[in-house]
C-alpha cells in the first residue's frame, strides 16, 4: 500500500540516449534509470505501446529490440541504447498494413484492442522467423501475452491467416485507395 511504497529512487541524472525507433533515429536525454516503456510512451511518442501492469505480467508493452520481443516495462532504457526498436507503429509500410495487422482486424484478433500492440509485435517476430507456424508454435509465442476479450482463439486464427498471406506472397492493399462510389451504374440482370 501507499505508505509502504519504496521512496522514488533518486534521480540518476540525465544521460544521452540514442536508438532507432521504427526506423527513425532518436536522440534523447533520458533519466539514467528510466524504463524503456516510459521513454517510448512519454519521450519517443510511441503511445501505441501500452502499459497494462508495469510488472511483466500482461505483455501489452512488448516491443521488438533488435528484432526480439522484449517487455519494455521490465527493460531499462539504457539496455536498449543504440538498439533498433520496433513498436506497433512500425509494423505497417505506409498505408499498407502488415498482414498480421490486417488479419487481426479481419479475423477478430482484436476486440478492445488494448492487448493488440503487444500481440502484434510478438506475432510479427514469430512470422519473421517462422512464416508458417503451427498452432502450437503460435500459442507458445503468445503465451506471455494476456488478452481478456478474445479468449485467444481468434488471435490464433488471425496469425494463421496472416501466415497464409505472407507465404502466398500476396500483399495488403493501400488503405487510402478510393472507397465505394455512391453513384454506381446499373449492372444489368
Amino acid at each position, binding site marked *: 500500500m501507499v505508505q509502504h511504497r519504496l521512496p522514488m529512487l533518486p534521480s540518476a541524472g540525465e544521460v544521452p540516449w540514442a536508438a532507432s525507433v521504427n526506423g527513425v533515429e532518436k536522440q534523447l536525454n533520458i533519466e539514467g534509470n528510466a524504463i524503456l516503456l516510459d521513454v517510448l510512451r512519454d519521450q519517443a511518442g510511441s503511445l501505441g505501446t501500452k502499459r497494462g501492469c508495469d510488472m511483466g505480467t500482461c505483455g501489452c508493452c512488448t516491443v521488438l529490440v533488435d528484432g526480439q520481443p522484449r517487455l519494455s516495462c521490465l527493460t531499462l532504457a539504457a539496455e536498449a541504447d543504440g538498439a533498433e526498436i520496433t513498436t*506497433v507503429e512500425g509494423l505497417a509500410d505506409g498505408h499498407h498494413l502488415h498482414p498480421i495487422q490486417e488479419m487481426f482486424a*479481419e479475423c477478430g484478433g482484436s*476486440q478492445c484492442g488494448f492487448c493488440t500492440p503487444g500481440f502484434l509485435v510478438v506475432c510479427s517476430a514469430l512470422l519473421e522467423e517462422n512464416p508458417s507456424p503451427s498452432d502450437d508454435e503460435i500459442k507458445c509465442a503468445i503465451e506471455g501475452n494476456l488478452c481478456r476479450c478474445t479468449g485467444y482463439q481468434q488471435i490464433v486464427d488471425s496469425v494463421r491467416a496472416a501466415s497464409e498471406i505472407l507465404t502466398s506472397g500476396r500483399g495488403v492493399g493501400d488503405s487510402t485507395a478510393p472507397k465505394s462510389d455512391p453513384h454506381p451504374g446499373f449492372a444489368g440482370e
Partner: protein
Amino acid sequence: MADSDENSAADKNEDEMVGYRQQPGKLPFAKPGSGGKDRFSRPTDDAMIPESQGGQKAQPWGPHRHDGLVSGQVIGKPTALVDSRWKVTGQAHYGDDVRLAGELIGRIIRSPHHYARVLSIDCSKALELPGVVAIATGADAANKFGVLPVTKDEHAMAVEKARHAGDLVACVAAEDEATAREAERLIEVEYEILDSIHDMRDGLEDSENPIHDRGRYHIGEANVQKRVFQEFGDIDGMASSAVASHKQNWLFAGVNHAATEPHAVVAHWDPSGRLTLYTPQQVPHYVHRALADVLEVPMHQINVHRTFVGGGFGGKSDPFPHEMCAAILARKSGRPVRICFDREEVYWINRGRHPSRIEMNLHADDEGRICGIETDALIDGGAFASFGHVTTYYNGVLHTAPYEIGAFHYTGARVWTNKPASGAMRGHGAVNSRCAVETGLDDLAEQLSVDPITLRLANLLPPHSATITGFRVTSIGMRECLERVKEASGWDEKFRKMPLGKGIGIGCGFFISGSGLPIHWDPNKFPHATVHLKIDMDGGVTVHTGAADIGQGSDTVVAQSVAEVLGLPLDMIRVKSRDSDTSPVDLGSYSSRVTFMNANAAISAAMQIRDELLDATAEITGADRTKLVIGDRRIFAKNDPAVGVSYLEALHKAQEDRGALVASGAYRTPPMGRTHKGAAAGLAPAYSFSAYVAEVSVDVETGQTKVEKVWAAHDCGKALNPLSVKGQIIGSCHMGMGQVLSEEMRYGRSGHLMNPDLLDYKIPSVHEMPEVVPIIVESNDPEGPFGAKEAGEGPLLPILPAVCNAVYDAVGVRTAELPITPDRMHKLIEKKCKSSGVKDPLDLSAPRLEHSALQDTLASRAAEHAERDLARRLDDDRQPYHNGALFGLDPTIPPDEVDERWAVNVIPSEEYLASPRLAGSAWKHTERRHRGDA
C-alpha cells in the same frame, strides 16, 4: 423474385415505365461526391434476402418486422470492427494516451486502513515540494454520487471516513509523475482506526459503526445495504410433492474484470470554462450526471469524451471518484490533469463480481418437474453500493427461467464490508446463482436416474410465455441450444461413460437483453437509446450515437444497421460516438442493452432517411413508390431493376431546397411486467439463452483440472456480426473459466487483499484455454433489430456449471466453492477416497448412470414440448402461456389470479423470521423509520 411469372408480367404492364429505364452501364454524368471504386451496383444477392421478401434466406423461425429493410449488404456477414484499423496500428487512443499540452500528472492518496476516521490531512510538506501544483481532499467535494440514484453513497475523496484499504483520501497534481508520487508520501493523514468487518456474515449483525448511515432508511444498525424477499408459486406444495431434493451451500470468491487497460482519465477545463473529461467509460452519461453533482456545475458545462476503452466488462461502468479527482485538480490548477492507475489501483476500485454465499435448494416431483427453487444469496458488496441494489435482485430473479417451475422462494441480501466495492461484472448478478442452479439440476437428474439434458428439455418454458416472476419472454432458442450441443459433443457416447478423470458436463444460461427500466427513468418517457443520422452532399452517412464501444463492436453494429437499411457498403458510414456534446444520450454499455436498443434506434432513424430516398426516387422515376426497393447503392423497382436511380441521385433530389438530411431515431421498451415490489428488476424486452457442454480432465492425484473442449451454443436471436458473436462466446468462456478454475480476489487473515496484480490474480493464458466450438442459434426475436438479442454476457453463465458438472462426471465429487483450485480439488478427492474406503485415488470409480423409468416419460414429454414450441413460435395468434401450466394450471391466466396459493409475497412471515436462512436473516432488523427513529 418469388412472384409468379404471371404476376410480374401483369405488374410490368401496369407500371410500364417510360423515360427512366436505365441501360446497363456507368451513368454518363458525374455528380459532386461521385467517383470511387465499385462503379456498378451489385445485383441483389437473393441468398441474403429473407424468404418473406421473396429471397432465399430460410426463416425457420418465421418472418420478422425488419425483413422489408434487408438490402443484403452486411447484416449476418462476418464483419471486421469498423475501428479495428486504429487498434492494429497503435493509433487507438485509450485513457492514458490522451496527452494535452501543459498536462499535470495526478496521483491518488489512498487509505492504508480498512476502516478509519480521517482526523486531519496535512498537505504543507507536499505543497513545499517543487513541482507540486495542486492538492485536493474530501473538503473540496462535499456532494455524494453513485451510479444508482437511489443509493448515492460515494464521495470523490473520504469526507469523514475511509471505508476500505485503498479508499481515496486525497489527490495531488504535479509537473511529473516522480514528483506526484513523492508528494503522495509527503501528505500526512491522521487516522483513527475503527473496527472493520471482512466476513460478509458479520455485515448482517448490528454494528457500533455501520459503514454507511442512511438515516431513517437504515436497516437496524446493521450493514445491510439491500434485502429482498420474494415468494412465487405453490411454496407449500413444493416440499410435499418433492421426490428428489438438492441442497448445497456455495461459497463464491470475488473476481475482478481484469481488463487489460487500467483506469485512466484526463480532465481539462477549456478557456470558455467548460470541462472536457476524457475517460475510458462504458457509461459516459452517468459520469456526466455525477460530475455535474460533484462539481456543482450544470451538465451543459461538461463534455464527456469517451476514449477507446481497453476492456470494460462492467469494471468501467460506475462514475468513479478518480474521475472527480481529475476534474477537481484540473479546476484548481488551471491545467489539464492526467491520472493513470497502477494495476494495483484497479483492484482497489474493483466493482468486480460479488463474493457470495448461496444456499441453493431444488426440488423435483415424481414426474420430473422442477416443483421448487429456493435460493438464499448473501452477497458481499464491499464498501459502496455501486449497482448492488440491482445485483441483489438479479441473484434471484434471473434464474426463474428457462425452466417452468412450481415455486420460487428467494431471499437475498447485500451487505457493506470494508473491502473494495463489488459491482457489475459480465453476467451481472446471474452468474453465481446460475452455477448453483445448474449444478443442482445435475444432482437432481442423478437422484432421479435420468439424463440431465433430457431433464432440462422436458421442463422448458415455451416461446412467448411468462415466467413465474411475470417476465415476458418472447423468442426462446433454449431447446435448439441444448439439442445442438448434445449432438456436437457426442454427449450420449460420453456422459457417465468416460474413464476416471475424464468427464463431460452440461450447463445452461438465461440473461437479459437490455434492462427494461433504465437506471435514470426520470422523466419517465425518455427513450433508452437515440441515434442521429446526418447525410450531406457527399453521400457518406454520419451516425451520432452515445453508445460506448468498449471493444464489443457497438460502433460496428450501429454502422451495419444503418448500412443495411440504406443499402450502402460499410465504408460509407462513419460513427461518431465519443463526445457527449455531439452524441445523443445513450444509457451506456451495461446489461447487454446496446445492440438491442441502439441498433433499434439506428434502424428507426435510417428508416426515415430511407423513406425520403424512396420518395425522391418515385418522384424522379415516376415509379410506384410501394414497389421500390433499396439494393447496393441503388434504388429501383423491385419487378424491374432497370428502373431506378443511384443512391446519390436520390439523395441529391431529397436534399433539394433543404440541404443535408438528418434523422433521429429512438428506442424505448414496451410496457411489461407485473407490479409487486421489485417486479421491474430483471425485466427486459428480450432474453438470451445458452447451453454449453464442457469436457474436462481432472488429475485425481494432484487435483489439477483442465478444460479440454467446450461446445458453446448461444441463442442471440440473430447474429448481426457472426465474427463478433463468436468472439463474445469464446471470450466469455475465457472469463468464466477463469472464475471457475483460477481467479479469486484473495483476502488474508487481516482482511488485506493479497493479490492485487496479474501475477497472483490468475486469468487464463492461451495454454489454459480449451478449444471452444461456438454454435450460434438464431431464434429471430420479434422485437430485436433484425431479430437480434444480446451475445455479450449471457454466454458467460453456462461455462461455470458445465465445468463443475463435468468435474463430477470425471471424479464423482461436487464442489461447492469456486474457484476449483488444485488444492481444493485435492481435498475433495481425499474426502471422497475416505468416504468410499479407497486408499489410492486412482482406485476411485467415476459415476455411472442407469436410466430409471422416468427417463422415457421425460423424453416423450420433451418431444411433445418440442412440437408445442414449434407451433407457438410460428403462430401469430397464440394464446398466452403463464408459468404453471406444467403443473396443471390454466396457461392463459396468471396463476396467482386463479389460485391463491400462487399469490406473490414480498414480505417475510413471522414464521419465516423465526428461523430464517442466512441472507434471510437480514429481515430480522427493522428499518429505522419503521421503528419510529428519525
